[in-house]
Protein backbone atom coordinates (compact mmCIF):
# COMPACT_ATOMS: atom_id res chain seq x y z
CA UNK A 1 0.00 0.00 0.00
CA UNK A 2 2.68 2.49 1.13
CA UNK A 3 6.42 1.86 0.96
CA UNK A 4 8.94 4.30 2.34
CA UNK A 5 12.54 3.41 1.63
CA UNK A 6 15.65 5.25 2.83
CA UNK A 7 13.93 8.65 2.80
CA UNK A 8 15.83 11.75 3.91
CA UNK A 9 14.60 15.33 4.12
CA UNK A 10 16.42 18.64 4.72
CA UNK A 11 14.63 21.92 5.37
CA UNK A 12 16.55 25.22 5.48
CA UNK A 13 19.72 23.13 5.22
CA UNK A 14 18.93 21.29 8.44
CA UNK A 15 18.44 17.51 8.41
CA UNK A 16 14.84 16.79 9.41
CA UNK A 17 14.56 13.10 8.48
CA UNK A 18 17.37 10.65 7.82
CA UNK A 19 17.15 7.27 6.15
CA UNK A 20 13.56 6.38 7.15
CA UNK A 21 12.22 3.05 5.88
CA UNK A 22 8.97 1.31 6.65
CA UNK A 23 5.86 0.01 4.94
CA UNK A 24 2.14 0.22 5.61
CA UNK A 25 0.15 -2.87 4.64
CA UNK A 26 -3.55 -3.18 3.95
CA UNK A 27 -5.67 -2.81 7.10
CA UNK A 28 -2.72 -1.80 9.31
CA UNK A 29 -2.68 1.07 11.79
CA UNK A 30 0.81 2.44 12.37
CA UNK A 31 1.65 4.95 15.09
CA UNK A 32 4.55 7.38 14.63
CA UNK A 33 5.98 8.17 18.06
CA UNK A 34 8.87 10.21 19.38
CA UNK A 35 9.62 13.37 21.37
CA UNK A 36 8.90 16.92 20.15
CA UNK A 37 10.98 17.80 17.09
CA UNK A 38 11.54 14.14 16.19
CA UNK A 39 10.18 14.74 12.68
CA UNK A 40 6.79 13.02 13.04
CA UNK A 41 4.69 15.73 11.37
CA UNK A 42 7.38 16.34 8.73
CA UNK A 43 7.22 12.65 7.82
CA UNK A 44 3.44 12.87 7.42
CA UNK A 45 3.81 15.96 5.21
CA UNK A 46 6.38 14.15 3.13
CA UNK A 47 4.00 11.22 2.64
CA UNK A 48 1.29 13.50 1.25
CA UNK A 49 3.67 15.40 -1.04
CA UNK A 50 3.71 18.63 0.97
CA UNK A 51 7.48 18.14 1.29
CA UNK A 52 9.71 16.49 -1.33
CA UNK A 53 12.31 14.01 -0.08
CA UNK A 54 15.97 14.81 -0.84
CA UNK A 55 16.73 11.13 -1.27
CA UNK A 56 14.95 7.81 -1.04
CA UNK A 57 11.51 6.91 -2.34
CA UNK A 58 7.91 7.08 -1.17
CA UNK A 59 5.85 4.59 -3.17
CA UNK A 60 2.08 4.79 -2.98
CA UNK A 61 0.48 1.73 -4.56
CA UNK A 62 3.91 1.12 -6.16
CA UNK A 63 3.95 4.58 -7.81
CA UNK A 64 6.28 7.37 -6.56
CA UNK A 65 4.16 9.88 -4.66
CA UNK A 66 5.62 12.80 -6.68
CA UNK A 67 4.02 11.37 -9.81
CA UNK A 68 0.53 11.84 -8.34
CA UNK A 69 -1.39 14.95 -9.33
CA UNK A 70 -2.77 16.96 -6.38
CA UNK A 71 -6.33 15.74 -7.06
CA UNK A 72 -5.31 12.09 -7.55
CA UNK A 73 -3.26 12.16 -4.37
CA UNK A 74 -6.26 13.60 -2.48
CA UNK A 75 -8.38 10.73 -3.85
CA UNK A 76 -5.81 8.24 -2.51
CA UNK A 77 -4.60 9.79 0.73
CA UNK A 78 -6.77 11.72 3.18
CA UNK A 79 -5.15 13.81 5.87
CA UNK A 80 -6.68 14.70 9.23
CA UNK A 81 -4.53 17.52 10.52
CA UNK A 82 -4.67 20.01 13.38
CA UNK A 83 -7.21 22.31 11.76
CA UNK A 84 -7.96 25.77 12.91
CA UNK A 85 -11.71 26.51 12.78
CA UNK A 86 -12.98 27.92 9.47
CA UNK A 87 -12.97 31.69 8.90
CA UNK A 88 -16.76 31.79 8.72
CA UNK A 89 -18.93 29.27 10.52
CA UNK A 90 -19.95 26.32 8.33
CA UNK A 91 -22.37 23.51 9.15
CA UNK A 92 -21.28 19.93 9.89
CA UNK A 93 -22.69 18.77 6.54
CA UNK A 94 -20.88 21.52 4.61
CA UNK A 95 -17.51 20.60 6.15
CA UNK A 96 -18.02 16.87 5.48
CA UNK A 97 -19.05 17.69 1.88
CA UNK A 98 -15.63 19.30 1.30
CA UNK A 99 -14.30 15.74 1.04
CA UNK A 100 -16.00 15.52 -2.37
CA UNK A 101 -13.65 18.16 -3.81
CA UNK A 102 -10.97 15.82 -5.26
CA UNK A 103 -13.63 13.79 -7.11
CA UNK A 104 -15.55 16.65 -8.67
CA UNK A 105 -14.99 18.60 -11.86
CA UNK A 106 -15.58 22.36 -12.10
CA UNK A 107 -19.32 22.56 -12.75
CA UNK A 108 -20.31 19.11 -11.44
CA UNK A 109 -23.10 19.20 -8.89
CA UNK A 110 -23.55 16.84 -5.93
CA UNK A 111 -25.70 13.82 -6.76
CA UNK A 112 -27.64 11.40 -4.55
CA UNK A 113 -24.60 9.09 -4.26
CA UNK A 114 -22.57 11.99 -2.88
CA UNK A 115 -25.26 12.77 -0.31
CA UNK A 116 -25.34 9.10 0.65
CA UNK A 117 -21.54 9.07 0.99
CA UNK A 118 -21.63 12.16 3.25
CA UNK A 119 -24.44 10.71 5.38
CA UNK A 120 -22.60 7.41 5.76
CA UNK A 121 -19.39 9.16 6.77
CA UNK A 122 -21.22 11.25 9.36
CA UNK A 123 -22.97 8.11 10.60
CA UNK A 124 -19.63 6.29 11.01
CA UNK A 125 -18.30 9.08 13.22
CA UNK A 126 -21.59 9.47 15.10
CA UNK A 127 -22.47 12.97 13.87
CA UNK A 128 -25.51 12.08 11.77
CA UNK A 129 -27.79 13.98 14.17
CA UNK A 130 -25.78 17.20 13.92
CA UNK A 131 -25.65 17.79 10.18
CA UNK A 132 -27.12 21.30 10.36
CA UNK A 133 -25.18 22.35 13.47
CA UNK A 134 -22.51 25.06 13.12
CA UNK A 135 -18.96 23.74 13.58
CA UNK A 136 -18.09 26.42 16.13
CA UNK A 137 -20.63 24.86 18.49
CA UNK A 138 -19.00 21.38 18.38
CA UNK A 139 -16.79 19.99 21.15
CA UNK A 140 -13.13 19.20 20.43
CA UNK A 141 -13.91 15.50 20.05
CA UNK A 142 -16.84 16.13 17.73
CA UNK A 143 -14.74 18.47 15.61
CA UNK A 144 -12.00 15.85 15.29
CA UNK A 145 -14.59 13.24 14.32
CA UNK A 146 -15.98 15.66 11.75
CA UNK A 147 -12.53 16.04 10.16
CA UNK A 148 -12.32 12.24 10.02
CA UNK A 149 -15.76 12.20 8.33
CA UNK A 150 -14.49 14.71 5.76
CA UNK A 151 -11.52 12.41 5.15
CA UNK A 152 -13.87 9.43 4.73
CA UNK A 153 -15.89 11.32 2.11
CA UNK A 154 -12.64 11.50 0.12
CA UNK A 155 -12.89 7.66 0.00
CA UNK A 156 -9.14 7.34 0.51
CA UNK A 157 -6.97 4.24 0.33
CA UNK A 158 -4.84 5.56 3.20
CA UNK A 159 -5.59 7.81 6.16
CA UNK A 160 -2.92 10.06 7.68
CA UNK A 161 -3.64 11.64 11.06
CA UNK A 162 -1.49 14.34 12.66
CA UNK A 163 -1.84 14.10 16.43
CA UNK A 164 -5.57 13.34 16.29
CA UNK A 165 -5.92 13.09 20.08
CA UNK A 166 -4.31 16.43 20.96
CA UNK A 167 -6.33 18.63 23.33
CA UNK A 168 -8.97 15.93 23.76
CA UNK A 169 -10.02 14.49 27.09
CA UNK A 170 -9.43 10.81 27.86
CA UNK A 171 -12.77 9.55 26.62
CA UNK A 172 -12.47 11.30 23.25
CA UNK A 173 -8.84 10.13 22.83
CA UNK A 174 -9.96 6.51 23.04
CA UNK A 175 -13.06 7.17 20.98
CA UNK A 176 -11.08 8.68 18.09
CA UNK A 177 -8.43 5.94 17.97
CA UNK A 178 -11.02 3.17 18.28
CA UNK A 179 -12.91 4.80 15.41
CA UNK A 180 -9.79 4.87 13.22
CA UNK A 181 -9.16 1.20 14.04
CA UNK A 182 -12.73 0.19 13.29
CA UNK A 183 -12.72 1.95 9.90
CA UNK A 184 -10.36 -0.72 8.56
CA UNK A 185 -8.59 1.83 6.30
CA UNK A 186 -4.78 1.58 6.49
CA UNK A 187 -3.82 4.48 8.72
CA UNK A 188 -0.73 6.25 9.95
CA UNK A 189 -1.00 8.56 12.97
CA UNK A 190 1.48 10.77 14.84
CA UNK A 191 0.82 10.14 18.52
CA UNK A 192 2.26 11.61 21.70
CA UNK A 193 0.65 9.22 24.14
CA UNK A 194 2.68 6.02 24.02
CA UNK A 195 0.12 4.00 26.00
CA UNK A 196 -2.60 4.91 23.51
CA UNK A 197 -0.23 4.05 20.66
CA UNK A 198 0.51 0.67 22.24
CA UNK A 199 -3.19 0.00 22.77
CA UNK A 200 -4.51 0.80 19.28
CA UNK A 201 -1.65 0.56 16.76
CA UNK A 202 -0.50 -2.62 15.03
CA UNK A 203 3.02 -1.29 14.60
CA UNK A 204 4.99 1.67 15.89
CA UNK A 205 7.67 3.79 14.23
CA UNK A 206 9.94 5.42 16.82
CA UNK A 207 11.73 8.57 15.66
CA UNK A 208 14.30 10.72 17.43
CA UNK A 209 15.81 13.86 15.89
CA UNK A 210 14.79 12.65 12.43
CA UNK A 211 16.42 9.25 12.86
CA UNK A 212 14.45 6.01 12.82
CA UNK A 213 15.16 4.22 16.11
CA UNK A 214 12.79 1.27 15.68
CA UNK A 215 9.87 -0.02 13.63
CA UNK A 216 7.71 -3.00 14.54
CA UNK A 217 5.02 -4.25 16.91
CA UNK A 218 4.64 -2.43 20.24
CA UNK A 219 6.52 -5.08 22.27
CA UNK A 220 9.59 -4.64 20.03
CA UNK A 221 9.54 -0.83 20.05
CA UNK A 222 8.37 0.10 23.53
CA UNK A 223 11.34 -1.33 25.37
CA UNK A 224 13.13 0.39 28.20
CA UNK A 225 16.42 0.16 26.32
CA UNK A 226 15.00 2.05 23.30
CA UNK A 227 12.77 4.59 25.05
CA UNK A 228 15.13 5.74 27.82
CA UNK A 229 17.74 7.34 25.52
CA UNK A 230 15.06 8.82 23.21
CA UNK A 231 12.93 10.49 25.88
CA UNK A 232 15.73 11.05 28.40
CA UNK A 233 13.75 9.33 31.12
CA UNK A 234 13.76 5.84 32.46
CA UNK A 235 10.57 3.89 32.05
CA UNK A 236 8.89 0.78 33.26
CA UNK A 237 6.90 -1.39 30.83
CA UNK A 238 4.39 -4.05 31.74
CA UNK A 239 1.60 -6.09 30.19
CA UNK A 240 -1.78 -4.75 31.22
CA UNK A 241 -3.52 -7.64 33.01
CA UNK A 242 -7.00 -6.96 31.56
CA UNK A 243 -6.20 -5.60 28.10
CA UNK A 244 -3.18 -7.83 27.46
CA UNK A 245 -1.52 -4.78 25.87
CA UNK A 246 1.88 -3.37 26.65
CA UNK A 247 1.73 -0.24 28.83
CA UNK A 248 4.46 1.93 30.28
CA UNK A 249 5.18 4.47 32.95
CA UNK A 250 7.98 7.05 32.77
CA UNK A 251 10.00 7.69 35.91
CA UNK A 252 11.38 11.21 36.44
CA UNK A 253 14.96 12.45 36.95
CA UNK A 254 16.99 9.90 35.06
CA UNK A 255 19.15 11.04 32.11
CA UNK A 256 20.27 9.01 29.12
CA UNK A 257 22.06 9.03 25.76
CA UNK A 258 20.06 9.53 22.60
CA UNK A 259 20.11 6.97 19.79
Amino acid sequence: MLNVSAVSLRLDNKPILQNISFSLQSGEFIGIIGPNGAGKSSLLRLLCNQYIADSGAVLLKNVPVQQYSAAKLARTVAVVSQNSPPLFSLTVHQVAAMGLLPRKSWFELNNSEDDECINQALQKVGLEHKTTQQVDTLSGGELQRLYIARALVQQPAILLLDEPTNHLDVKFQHQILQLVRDLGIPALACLHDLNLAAMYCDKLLLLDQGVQCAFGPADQVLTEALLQPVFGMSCHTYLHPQLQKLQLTFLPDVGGNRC
Partner: protein
Amino acid sequence: MLRRHYGRMMAGAVFLLLVSMLLSLTFGSVKLSISEVFYLLSNQGFNLPINAELLNTIVWQIRLPRILTAVVVGAGLAICGAILQNASRNPLADPYLFGLMAGAGLGATLVSVVLPPQMVSMALGAFAGALFAVALVFAVCAGQRWRKVEITLLAGVAVSFMLSAISSFILYFAEPFAANRIMFWLMGSLSRTDWHSVALLAPVTLIVLLLALALRRQLDALLFSDESARTLGVNTLRLRLTLLLATALLTACIVSQCGGIAFVGLMVPHIVRHFFGVTSVRLLLGSAVVGALFMIWVDNLARLILPQQEIPLGVITSLAGSVFFLLIMRRQRL
Protein backbone atom coordinates in the same frame (compact mmCIF):
# COMPACT_ATOMS: atom_id res chain seq x y z
CA MET B 1 -32.80 30.50 10.94
CA LEU B 2 -32.73 32.81 7.91
CA ARG B 3 -30.02 30.85 6.08
CA ARG B 4 -32.28 27.81 5.84
CA HIS B 5 -34.72 29.78 3.71
CA TYR B 6 -32.08 30.49 1.10
CA GLY B 7 -34.38 29.84 -1.87
CA ARG B 8 -37.06 32.19 -0.61
CA MET B 9 -34.52 34.86 0.39
CA MET B 10 -32.92 34.68 -3.05
CA ALA B 11 -36.28 34.87 -4.85
CA GLY B 12 -37.24 37.84 -2.66
CA ALA B 13 -33.97 39.63 -3.40
CA VAL B 14 -34.33 39.08 -7.17
CA PHE B 15 -37.93 40.38 -7.02
CA LEU B 16 -36.78 43.46 -5.08
CA LEU B 17 -34.03 44.01 -7.63
CA LEU B 18 -36.48 43.93 -10.55
CA VAL B 19 -38.90 46.28 -8.76
CA SER B 20 -36.02 48.61 -7.88
CA MET B 21 -34.84 48.68 -11.49
CA LEU B 22 -38.33 49.56 -12.65
CA LEU B 23 -38.81 52.24 -9.98
CA SER B 24 -35.40 53.73 -10.76
CA LEU B 25 -36.50 54.32 -14.34
CA THR B 26 -39.18 56.69 -13.02
CA PHE B 27 -36.78 58.76 -10.88
CA GLY B 28 -34.92 61.79 -12.17
CA SER B 29 -35.35 65.40 -13.22
CA VAL B 30 -38.12 64.30 -15.61
CA LYS B 31 -40.64 62.33 -13.56
CA LEU B 32 -42.21 59.32 -15.25
CA SER B 33 -45.01 57.08 -14.09
CA ILE B 34 -44.71 53.29 -13.98
CA SER B 35 -47.25 52.99 -16.82
CA GLU B 36 -45.24 55.41 -18.98
CA VAL B 37 -42.09 53.39 -18.29
CA PHE B 38 -43.90 50.16 -19.22
CA TYR B 39 -45.19 51.78 -22.39
CA LEU B 40 -41.77 53.07 -23.41
CA LEU B 41 -40.06 49.78 -22.62
CA SER B 42 -42.62 47.64 -24.44
CA ASN B 43 -42.68 49.81 -27.58
CA GLN B 44 -38.87 50.00 -27.81
CA GLY B 45 -39.03 53.42 -29.39
CA PHE B 46 -41.26 52.46 -32.30
CA ASN B 47 -44.62 54.00 -33.21
CA LEU B 48 -44.40 56.61 -30.49
CA PRO B 49 -46.21 59.95 -30.57
CA ILE B 50 -43.82 62.85 -31.21
CA ASN B 51 -43.96 64.16 -27.61
CA ALA B 52 -42.89 60.72 -26.34
CA GLU B 53 -39.62 60.68 -28.27
CA LEU B 54 -37.81 62.74 -25.68
CA LEU B 55 -39.06 60.43 -22.94
CA ASN B 56 -38.03 57.46 -25.04
CA THR B 57 -34.51 58.85 -25.30
CA ILE B 58 -34.42 59.48 -21.55
CA VAL B 59 -35.45 55.90 -20.74
CA TRP B 60 -33.57 53.99 -23.45
CA GLN B 61 -30.41 56.07 -23.85
CA ILE B 62 -29.88 57.56 -20.39
CA ARG B 63 -31.68 55.80 -17.55
CA LEU B 64 -31.76 52.15 -18.67
CA PRO B 65 -28.02 51.87 -19.51
CA ARG B 66 -27.22 53.71 -16.29
CA ILE B 67 -29.39 51.37 -14.19
CA LEU B 68 -28.03 48.26 -15.91
CA THR B 69 -24.51 49.57 -15.32
CA ALA B 70 -25.37 50.07 -11.64
CA VAL B 71 -26.59 46.45 -11.54
CA VAL B 72 -23.40 44.99 -13.01
CA VAL B 73 -21.10 47.36 -11.09
CA GLY B 74 -22.78 46.52 -7.76
CA ALA B 75 -22.82 42.82 -8.56
CA GLY B 76 -19.24 42.89 -9.81
CA LEU B 77 -17.80 44.75 -6.81
CA ALA B 78 -19.67 42.52 -4.36
CA ILE B 79 -18.48 39.37 -6.17
CA CYS B 80 -14.89 40.69 -6.10
CA GLY B 81 -15.20 41.35 -2.35
CA ALA B 82 -16.61 37.88 -1.68
CA ILE B 83 -13.83 36.22 -3.70
CA LEU B 84 -11.07 38.29 -2.09
CA GLN B 85 -12.38 37.73 1.46
CA ASN B 86 -12.51 33.94 1.02
CA ALA B 87 -9.33 33.64 -1.03
CA SER B 88 -7.23 35.70 1.38
CA ARG B 89 -9.05 34.43 4.50
CA ASN B 90 -9.35 38.08 5.40
CA PRO B 91 -12.86 39.25 6.34
CA LEU B 92 -11.89 42.86 5.64
CA ALA B 93 -10.61 42.34 2.09
CA ASP B 94 -12.28 44.16 -0.79
CA PRO B 95 -11.09 45.63 -4.10
CA TYR B 96 -10.72 49.08 -2.52
CA LEU B 97 -8.79 48.03 0.59
CA PHE B 98 -6.66 45.66 -1.50
CA GLY B 99 -5.40 48.60 -3.55
CA LEU B 100 -6.99 47.24 -6.74
CA MET B 101 -9.20 50.30 -7.25
CA ALA B 102 -6.44 52.81 -6.73
CA GLY B 103 -4.16 50.82 -9.05
CA ALA B 104 -6.87 50.62 -11.70
CA GLY B 105 -7.53 54.35 -11.25
CA LEU B 106 -3.84 55.15 -11.76
CA GLY B 107 -3.64 52.95 -14.86
CA ALA B 108 -6.75 54.50 -16.40
CA THR B 109 -5.57 58.04 -15.50
CA LEU B 110 -2.21 57.47 -17.20
CA VAL B 111 -3.89 56.11 -20.32
CA SER B 112 -6.40 58.97 -20.43
CA VAL B 113 -3.62 61.56 -20.18
CA VAL B 114 -1.36 59.95 -22.80
CA LEU B 115 -3.89 58.53 -25.28
CA PRO B 116 -7.24 59.72 -26.62
CA PRO B 117 -9.90 58.30 -24.27
CA GLN B 118 -11.11 54.95 -25.61
CA MET B 119 -13.00 52.34 -23.65
CA VAL B 120 -10.71 49.37 -24.36
CA SER B 121 -7.44 51.22 -23.80
CA MET B 122 -8.80 52.68 -20.55
CA ALA B 123 -9.86 49.21 -19.36
CA LEU B 124 -6.48 47.71 -20.30
CA GLY B 125 -4.63 50.55 -18.57
CA ALA B 126 -6.80 50.06 -15.50
CA PHE B 127 -6.08 46.31 -15.57
CA ALA B 128 -2.33 46.95 -15.75
CA GLY B 129 -2.63 49.39 -12.84
CA ALA B 130 -4.64 46.89 -10.78
CA LEU B 131 -2.01 44.20 -11.42
CA PHE B 132 0.69 46.65 -10.33
CA ALA B 133 -1.23 47.26 -7.08
CA VAL B 134 -1.58 43.50 -6.49
CA ALA B 135 2.16 43.05 -7.06
CA LEU B 136 2.91 45.81 -4.53
CA VAL B 137 0.61 44.27 -1.88
CA PHE B 138 2.15 40.85 -2.58
CA ALA B 139 5.66 42.27 -2.19
CA VAL B 140 4.82 43.82 1.18
CA CYS B 141 3.09 40.66 2.42
CA ALA B 142 5.68 38.22 1.05
CA GLY B 143 6.58 35.64 3.64
CA GLN B 144 3.50 36.27 5.74
CA ARG B 145 1.53 33.75 3.68
CA TRP B 146 -1.69 35.70 4.10
CA ARG B 147 -1.80 34.79 7.78
CA LYS B 148 -1.61 38.27 9.22
CA VAL B 149 -4.88 39.96 8.45
CA GLU B 150 -3.58 43.28 9.73
CA ILE B 151 -0.49 43.30 7.51
CA THR B 152 -2.43 42.55 4.32
CA LEU B 153 -4.96 45.20 5.26
CA LEU B 154 -2.38 47.86 6.08
CA ALA B 155 -0.39 47.05 2.94
CA GLY B 156 -3.56 47.41 0.84
CA VAL B 157 -4.50 50.71 2.47
CA ALA B 158 -0.96 52.09 2.09
CA VAL B 159 -0.76 51.05 -1.58
CA SER B 160 -4.23 52.50 -2.12
CA PHE B 161 -3.28 55.92 -0.74
CA MET B 162 0.04 55.96 -2.57
CA LEU B 163 -1.46 55.15 -5.97
CA SER B 164 -4.41 57.53 -5.47
CA ALA B 165 -1.97 60.31 -4.62
CA ILE B 166 0.02 59.62 -7.80
CA SER B 167 -3.21 59.66 -9.87
CA SER B 168 -4.25 63.00 -8.37
CA PHE B 169 -0.74 64.41 -8.95
CA ILE B 170 -0.79 63.40 -12.62
CA LEU B 171 -4.27 64.85 -13.18
CA TYR B 172 -3.41 68.05 -11.32
CA PHE B 173 -0.53 68.80 -13.67
CA ALA B 174 -2.02 67.31 -16.83
CA GLU B 175 -5.34 69.17 -16.83
CA PRO B 176 -6.25 72.76 -16.02
CA PHE B 177 -9.53 71.83 -14.33
CA ALA B 178 -8.62 68.49 -12.79
CA ALA B 179 -10.85 68.61 -9.73
CA ASN B 180 -13.81 66.92 -11.41
CA ARG B 181 -11.69 64.16 -12.84
CA ILE B 182 -9.90 63.56 -9.54
CA MET B 183 -13.28 63.40 -7.84
CA PHE B 184 -14.44 60.87 -10.45
CA TRP B 185 -11.47 58.53 -9.94
CA LEU B 186 -11.54 58.81 -6.16
CA MET B 187 -15.27 58.63 -5.52
CA GLY B 188 -16.91 57.16 -8.59
CA SER B 189 -19.94 58.09 -10.65
CA LEU B 190 -22.32 56.46 -13.09
CA SER B 191 -23.02 59.72 -14.95
CA ARG B 192 -20.68 58.88 -17.86
CA THR B 193 -22.01 55.40 -18.47
CA ASP B 194 -23.90 54.29 -21.58
CA TRP B 195 -24.70 51.08 -23.44
CA HIS B 196 -20.99 50.60 -24.19
CA SER B 197 -20.35 50.40 -20.44
CA VAL B 198 -23.00 47.69 -20.12
CA ALA B 199 -21.52 45.83 -23.10
CA LEU B 200 -18.08 45.85 -21.46
CA LEU B 201 -19.03 45.19 -17.84
CA ALA B 202 -21.84 42.62 -18.15
CA PRO B 203 -19.80 39.89 -19.91
CA VAL B 204 -16.75 40.40 -17.69
CA THR B 205 -18.91 40.26 -14.54
CA LEU B 206 -20.63 37.11 -15.81
CA ILE B 207 -17.31 35.42 -16.70
CA VAL B 208 -15.79 36.17 -13.27
CA LEU B 209 -18.97 34.97 -11.54
CA LEU B 210 -18.95 31.72 -13.54
CA LEU B 211 -15.24 31.21 -12.85
CA ALA B 212 -15.78 31.71 -9.11
CA LEU B 213 -18.79 29.36 -9.17
CA ALA B 214 -16.69 26.75 -10.94
CA LEU B 215 -14.03 27.11 -8.25
CA ARG B 216 -16.61 27.18 -5.42
CA ARG B 217 -15.37 23.97 -3.75
CA GLN B 218 -11.78 25.22 -3.79
CA LEU B 219 -12.88 28.60 -2.36
CA ASP B 220 -14.73 26.81 0.45
CA ALA B 221 -11.69 24.63 1.18
CA LEU B 222 -9.58 27.78 1.68
CA LEU B 223 -11.78 28.78 4.64
CA PHE B 224 -9.81 26.41 6.90
CA SER B 225 -6.12 26.71 6.08
CA ASP B 226 -3.82 26.40 3.10
CA GLU B 227 -2.50 23.09 4.36
CA SER B 228 -5.99 21.71 4.80
CA ALA B 229 -6.94 22.88 1.28
CA ARG B 230 -3.81 21.31 -0.21
CA THR B 231 -4.67 17.94 1.34
CA LEU B 232 -7.97 18.15 -0.56
CA GLY B 233 -6.04 18.54 -3.81
CA VAL B 234 -6.19 22.34 -4.11
CA ASN B 235 -3.20 24.13 -5.64
CA THR B 236 -3.55 27.14 -3.35
CA LEU B 237 -1.03 29.38 -5.09
CA ARG B 238 -2.51 28.81 -8.55
CA LEU B 239 -6.04 29.24 -7.20
CA ARG B 240 -5.20 32.56 -5.53
CA LEU B 241 -3.40 33.89 -8.58
CA THR B 242 -6.33 32.93 -10.85
CA LEU B 243 -8.85 34.58 -8.56
CA LEU B 244 -6.71 37.68 -8.02
CA LEU B 245 -6.28 38.12 -11.77
CA ALA B 246 -10.02 37.69 -12.28
CA THR B 247 -10.92 40.22 -9.57
CA ALA B 248 -8.24 42.62 -10.85
CA LEU B 249 -9.72 42.41 -14.36
CA LEU B 250 -13.30 42.98 -13.18
CA THR B 251 -12.31 45.81 -10.82
CA ALA B 252 -10.28 47.42 -13.60
CA CYS B 253 -13.20 47.32 -16.04
CA ILE B 254 -15.52 48.79 -13.41
CA VAL B 255 -13.06 51.53 -12.43
CA SER B 256 -12.41 52.44 -16.09
CA GLN B 257 -16.16 53.10 -16.51
CA CYS B 258 -17.30 54.37 -13.10
CA GLY B 259 -14.23 55.41 -11.11
CA GLY B 260 -13.44 54.06 -7.67
CA ILE B 261 -16.52 53.13 -5.63
CA ALA B 262 -15.39 52.12 -2.17
CA PHE B 263 -16.61 49.61 0.40
CA VAL B 264 -19.32 47.84 -1.67
CA GLY B 265 -17.11 44.76 -1.87
CA LEU B 266 -16.55 44.84 1.87
CA MET B 267 -20.11 45.38 3.04
CA VAL B 268 -22.27 43.28 0.75
CA PRO B 269 -20.60 39.85 1.27
CA HIS B 270 -20.87 40.26 5.06
CA ILE B 271 -24.58 41.05 4.83
CA VAL B 272 -25.07 38.13 2.43
CA ARG B 273 -23.24 35.68 4.72
CA HIS B 274 -25.56 36.62 7.53
CA PHE B 275 -28.79 36.23 5.58
CA PHE B 276 -27.99 33.77 2.78
CA GLY B 277 -25.14 31.55 4.02
CA VAL B 278 -21.40 31.12 4.06
CA THR B 279 -20.64 28.60 1.30
CA SER B 280 -19.44 29.99 -2.00
CA VAL B 281 -22.51 29.36 -4.18
CA ARG B 282 -24.84 31.16 -1.79
CA LEU B 283 -22.27 33.86 -1.13
CA LEU B 284 -21.48 34.57 -4.78
CA LEU B 285 -25.05 34.52 -6.09
CA GLY B 286 -26.35 36.41 -3.05
CA SER B 287 -23.57 39.01 -3.36
CA ALA B 288 -24.38 39.51 -7.05
CA VAL B 289 -28.05 40.21 -6.36
CA VAL B 290 -27.65 42.22 -3.14
CA GLY B 291 -24.69 44.16 -4.60
CA ALA B 292 -26.80 45.11 -7.63
CA LEU B 293 -29.72 46.12 -5.39
CA PHE B 294 -27.45 48.17 -3.15
CA MET B 295 -25.80 50.01 -6.04
CA ILE B 296 -29.13 50.86 -7.70
CA TRP B 297 -30.34 52.61 -4.54
CA VAL B 298 -26.97 54.28 -3.92
CA ASP B 299 -27.19 55.69 -7.44
CA ASN B 300 -30.81 56.75 -6.90
CA LEU B 301 -29.77 58.57 -3.73
CA ALA B 302 -26.81 60.16 -5.50
CA ARG B 303 -29.16 61.46 -8.20
CA LEU B 304 -31.99 62.57 -5.91
CA ILE B 305 -30.50 63.92 -2.64
CA LEU B 306 -29.59 67.31 -4.12
CA PRO B 307 -31.81 69.01 -6.70
CA GLN B 308 -30.29 69.44 -10.19
CA GLN B 309 -26.95 67.89 -9.26
CA GLU B 310 -25.41 64.53 -8.51
CA ILE B 311 -23.19 63.67 -5.61
CA PRO B 312 -20.38 61.12 -6.15
CA LEU B 313 -21.38 57.54 -5.35
CA GLY B 314 -18.31 57.11 -3.14
CA VAL B 315 -19.66 59.71 -0.70
CA ILE B 316 -22.62 57.45 0.09
CA THR B 317 -20.80 54.09 -0.09
CA SER B 318 -17.87 55.38 1.98
CA LEU B 319 -20.19 56.78 4.63
CA ALA B 320 -22.12 53.52 4.89
CA GLY B 321 -18.97 51.42 4.49
CA SER B 322 -16.86 53.17 7.11
CA VAL B 323 -19.58 52.71 9.75
CA PHE B 324 -19.91 49.08 8.68
CA PHE B 325 -16.11 48.65 8.77
CA LEU B 326 -15.96 49.93 12.35
CA LEU B 327 -18.77 47.57 13.36
CA ILE B 328 -16.94 44.56 11.89
CA MET B 329 -13.66 45.55 13.57
CA ARG B 330 -15.44 45.92 16.89
CA ARG B 331 -17.16 42.56 16.47
CA GLN B 332 -13.98 40.76 15.45
CA ARG B 333 -11.79 42.63 17.93
CA LEU B 334 -9.05 43.13 15.33
